[in-house]
């Protein structure tokens, strides 16, 4: 993979995949319930959700290994109904990698090219090119059983990329790797996608993976698509408690709705007082109460005499040290649940005694209203 910094590729407006009202039932079980999505050409798109949310089912239907019970899928303007997996312009990186164990690296990568009858020279060139893209140059003669987990992952990637698909599908491709390698591969995958410009669809249950790599993310729960947005928006403006909770830590505070209009909402809370905040697009009022959410890292400890226009006071009841950060649990009078606070250690948060009084500063923009 090239190591030069690449400019972010501007996203095209062309639609690559159009999923409309797709449902999939297995007997009485609805694996996917009325999913609609538009994925653009050259986009790195992630399907994120816990296991059983329907993300893999959707991916397998795009690949052609499964068919919708109702609804349609179109790839590059072409309806995919009745088109089997071997005639779709998609290629997949399987969770198990599915490296053919009786073939070596080169033969694995060339597997799909054999049918295209390119001629020996062109086929060689394409294989070499694909191996270079995934930094496996020189390992072509390695047997499938002589590869490490990371190398197997790269072979699976090369084998799919060499086909020059319109869409590359990745089914939890990094879940079998250890943490360090996984983080390294996240960067490499993103870089590779930017370099080749192919539409990538990634299925993952790891929110950090989705946040780190994607242009857009669809968060799924129980067979439904709950939110589709950029990583930043998903993280900062989750549409409901479920999404907020799934995407990392979140403090939830009970709130009473005082005023609600088109764009904003005013609530009263016991800890944070009266707060005016943007109303999320999917906000549906359920009686007079709502929930206010704030991420642990958006609460900061105020040292010594420092003050903030927006602060809450409380007492540290627990402290957990994580190396670069410290996790504090702070009890606030009036709040039924203590707040989680994530503080970097450069000012000595790791030395705050348990039981001491602290004041926490927050940005009111970091408070999001969530429908109950």
């Amino acid at each position, binding site marked *: 993979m090239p190591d030069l910094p690449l400019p972010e590729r501007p996203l095209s407006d062309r639609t690559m995949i159009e999923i409309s009202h797709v449902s999939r039932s297995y007997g009485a079980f609805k694996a996917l319930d009325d999913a609609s999505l538009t994925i653009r050409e050259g986009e790195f798109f992630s399907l994120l959700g816990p296991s059983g949310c329907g993300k893999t089912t959707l991916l397998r239907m795009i*690949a*052609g*290994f499964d068919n919708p019970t109702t609804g349609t899928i179109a790839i590059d303007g072409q309806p995919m109904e009745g088109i*089997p*997996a*071997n*005639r779709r312009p*998609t*290629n*997949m990186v*399987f*969770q*198990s990698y*599915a*490296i*053919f*164990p*009786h073939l070596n690296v080169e033969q694995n990568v060339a*597997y*799909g090219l054999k*049918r*295209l009858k390119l001629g020996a020279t062109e086929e060689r060139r394409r294989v070499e090119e694909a191996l270079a893209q995934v930094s496996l140059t020189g390992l072509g003669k390695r047997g*499938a*059983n*002589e*590869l*490490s*987990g990371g*190398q*197997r992952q790269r072979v699976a990637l090369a*084998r*799919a990329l060499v*086909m020059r698909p319109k869409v590359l599908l990745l089914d939890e491709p990094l879940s079998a790797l250890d943490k360090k390698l996984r983080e390294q591969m996240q960067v490499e995958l993103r870089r590779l996608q930017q370099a080749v410009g192919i539409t990538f669809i990634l299925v993952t249950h790891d929110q950090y993976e989705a946040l780190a790599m994607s242009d857009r993310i669809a968060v799924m729960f129980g067979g439904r698509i709950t939110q589709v947005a950029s990583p930043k928006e998903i993280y900062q403006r989750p549409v409901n408690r479920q999404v907020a909770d799934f995407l990392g830590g979140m403090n939830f505070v009970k709130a009473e709705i005082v005023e609600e209009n088109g764009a904003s909402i005013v609530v009263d809370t016991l800890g944070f007082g009266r707060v005016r905040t943007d109303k999320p697009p999917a906000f549906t009022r359920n009686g007079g109460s709502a929930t206010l959410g704030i991420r642990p890292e958006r609460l900061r400890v105020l040292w010594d005499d420092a003050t903030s226009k927006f602060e809450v006071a409380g007492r540290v009841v627990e402290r957990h040290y994580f190396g670069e950060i410290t996790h504090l649990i702070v009890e606030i009078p009036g709040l039924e649940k203590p707040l989680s606070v994530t503080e970097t250690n450069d000012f000595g948060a790791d030395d705050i005694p348990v039981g001491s009084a602290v004041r926490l500063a927050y940005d009111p923009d970091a408070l999001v209203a969530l429908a109950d």
Partner: protein
Amino acid sequence: MTMMNRMLSRWLPAYAFLYIVFLYLPVVFLPIFSVNTTASPKFPLTGLTLKWYRDLPNTPALIDAAWNSLMVGVSAALLATLLGICAARAITRYRFPGRRAINGLIMAPLVLPEIILAVSMLLVMLQLGLSLSLITVVFGHVLICIPYSLSVLTSGFEGFDRSLEEASADLGESAFGTFRRVTLPMVAPAIISSLLVSFTISLDEFIIAFFLTGTEPTLPIYIWGQLRFASKLPGVLALGTVLLVGSFLLLTIAEVLRRRAARRTQNTGGAHA
């Protein structure tokens, strides 16, 4: 406790040695006496000769029996492996009620007394009005070969990652192409191994063949018939040695292939992960 351990560690190797000797000494006598010049199997040997081996091809009855055994063995191996493939694929690929029970029932002939099996089969064949022939022997041998065939094939098919076939389709290959380029090469060693094991078992089998054959003897039955004549003993020993070496070779090849098949299909981690 430590005393006991010390005693064990001293005597266990001796016990193991005696055990091996007891197990294999009779087998070693076979080739030794088969090269003795006199007909009676007694020490000391009177001289070395290969004439008993040279006589083997000149015995028409033996050639007939060998031919019969070959026919029976090949047919039984093919049939048992074919049925074994169906059963092993069903058992390793699908989850269905009674899977374990069916597996157990197929494996049962392995532990049933062979003579009971032979007598019951004889009764069934006669009830069905089948006249005894090499074909009935084949049926009997298929029954006792399937457990071996099934266990070899199951270990070859087990862990066959279904996504391999999907990956092949994903890369543009047709269903037949996938079978030819992925499925077959991966399970071929197990299938060949099953054929070899089944053939070997059929070749050496006596009781069922004895009950179910009509007038045409297989090799073990021929050998049994020859044992009544003391003068024929060296020929039997020579033939026995040939069979022994042949079976040993076939089973070794079969085991090597079975392990290769198992290694191919069970490759989730990678050797140097």
